[in-house]
């Protein structure tokens, strides 16, 4: 990070700030729905960071999976909760200290990793397409894990269908 301040740096700081702010908002907001919407900021910021690192495939997947899928599912779950008007507090008060402890532990782990990691300095980010390479990896060396994940997901879906079917049918 020697050399001039480039525009990419500015964008990086901006995205990082958005990500961090989103995370903070999600953790600290007392309104559970707003907390979920703060997550949107985090997810989008992370996607932007991926994009900045020229991992465009990952960025698109991040948006698609986290914003289009996870976030919407969370909102769904929150909005369908029955006592939504009482649930302004996102976390029960009792576990606040536990949360702080967990956060501190996580921070320590991350910090150690950060300090120990041998960062390679790369002068210019390569804007090479990653998609083809990813595809080859997935169908080549990563084929077995892909298959395993696929099977697992299939089982999950079947399980979900079975559970869902049992729910309203038994009434």
């Amino acid at each position, binding site marked *: 990070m020697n050399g001039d301040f480039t525009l990419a740096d500015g964008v990086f700081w901006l995205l990082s700030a958005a990500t961090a702010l989103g995370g903070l908002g999600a953790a600290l907001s007392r309104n559970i729905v707003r907390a979920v919407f703060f997550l949107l900021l985090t997810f989008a910021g992370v996607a932007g960071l991926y994009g900045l690192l020229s991992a465009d*495939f990952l960025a*698109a997947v991040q948006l698609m999976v986290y914003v289009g899928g996870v976030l919407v599912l969370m909102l769904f779950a929150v909005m369908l909760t029955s006592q939504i008007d009482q649930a302004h507090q996102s976390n029960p008060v009792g576990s606040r200290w536990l949360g702080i402890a967990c956060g501190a532990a996580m921070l320590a782990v991350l910090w150690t990793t950060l300090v120990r990691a041998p960062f390679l300095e790369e002068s210019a980010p390569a804007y090479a397409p990653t998609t083809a390479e990813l595809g080859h990896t997935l169908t080549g060396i990563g084929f077995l894990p892909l298959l395993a994940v696929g099977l697992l997901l299939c089982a999950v879906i079947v399980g979900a269908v079975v559970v869902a079917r049992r729910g309203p049918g038994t009434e």
Partner: protein
Amino acid sequence: MRALAEYLAASWQLSPLGRELLSAGLILLTAIVVFAVALLIAALLTWLERRVAGRVQSRVGPNRVGPLGLLQWLADGLKMILKEDVVPAAADRPLFLLAPYPVMIGVFAAFATVPFSQLLIAADLDVGVLYLIAVTSLVVVGILMAGWGSNNKWSLLGGIRSAAQIVAYEVPAALALLSVVVMAGTLSLQSIVAAQGGWPWEWYLLRTPFGFVAFFIYFTAAVAEGNRTPFDLPEAESELVAGYNTEYSGIRFGGFFLGEFANIYLMSAIASALFFGGWQIPGVTPAEQVGSVWWQALGFLVFVAKAGVGCLVVILLRWTFPRLRVDQLTALCYRYLAPGAFLCLVGNALWIVLVPAGSLFERMVGYGMTAVAAALGLWFVLRMRRHMVSTGDRLDLDLFARGHTRAAFDPAWQARAYGRFRRRRPGEAS
């Protein structure tokens, strides 16, 4: 774009930071142009929608502002901007205020990868198709924000319906698109268009039977994702008042509105690029097109026309069909469309493995399917004509009608008959 930036930077002898600022400025400029184009398209589509609705319903449609009402969108836009932007007292204010933006960002950002012609594209991303799917998923967040933030039960129901619907229909839509991606072997929209040809049998629509089915699955799913009839449950007027945008007024409503219409064009454009050969002109190879401005212009027109037909179909669907019920909607998606799209994907994947590219068999299939499609189109037109004739109506497709009404009965008789009840002035003879 990058070439232009390099050229300008070299000729102006800019510092590295200057270069970056220049390229950033160019990106910003492109974004603004894309936004403006998308906005203009959406606005013109609102005109088209109302005009087509008018013709479908044997009335004229907007014809007051500008020639043929063509500036109606401008008047509407002005009205929306000038109207008070009401925020309900009980609303969740920040969410309510922010809600239109994810919707607009989601739709308008997707326009960056629409290949209007061979060279006319804001950003030909390597992950184009994925980018489209990813960016448009922002829309649902905006709708949920609106539904929740309005603090109105109808809005909430609309928001939840919408989210359920979009999440469900994203699956078949993405799978149907992937079945084309598998054929083309690339995610870049420009390359996908280039991999097709100008003639109908070279389109991915008619090249394999699976592509044909995949197109219909994609189109259905896209209509559903765009909340259009017969899948307009989130804003079902007769059920949920206006769904998630019940409480919105003024320009914030305009945001949703324009987003919806831009989305119609977007889905038609994607269908046109992925299934209908995009800007490809019959008989002209992409290599020949590059050099000529005229071929480029013609390619642009071809693309816009194809997308326009798509928009027209979407609009006609809205004025033709009743609306599905929630359970029918999800059943349609999970029972038929999603497995169907998956089969198309597998089918196309097997096709590339089993059928050699450019073989006689592949070409014969293309010709055969083109013939079948043409026959279906002809049958449809004839059937329509028969219905028209049997009611004594005449075909009136004149979208540019200045307005005329036909008297139900002989006007002279009607005037005479009504005249009996006209109030007579004092002294007037009966």
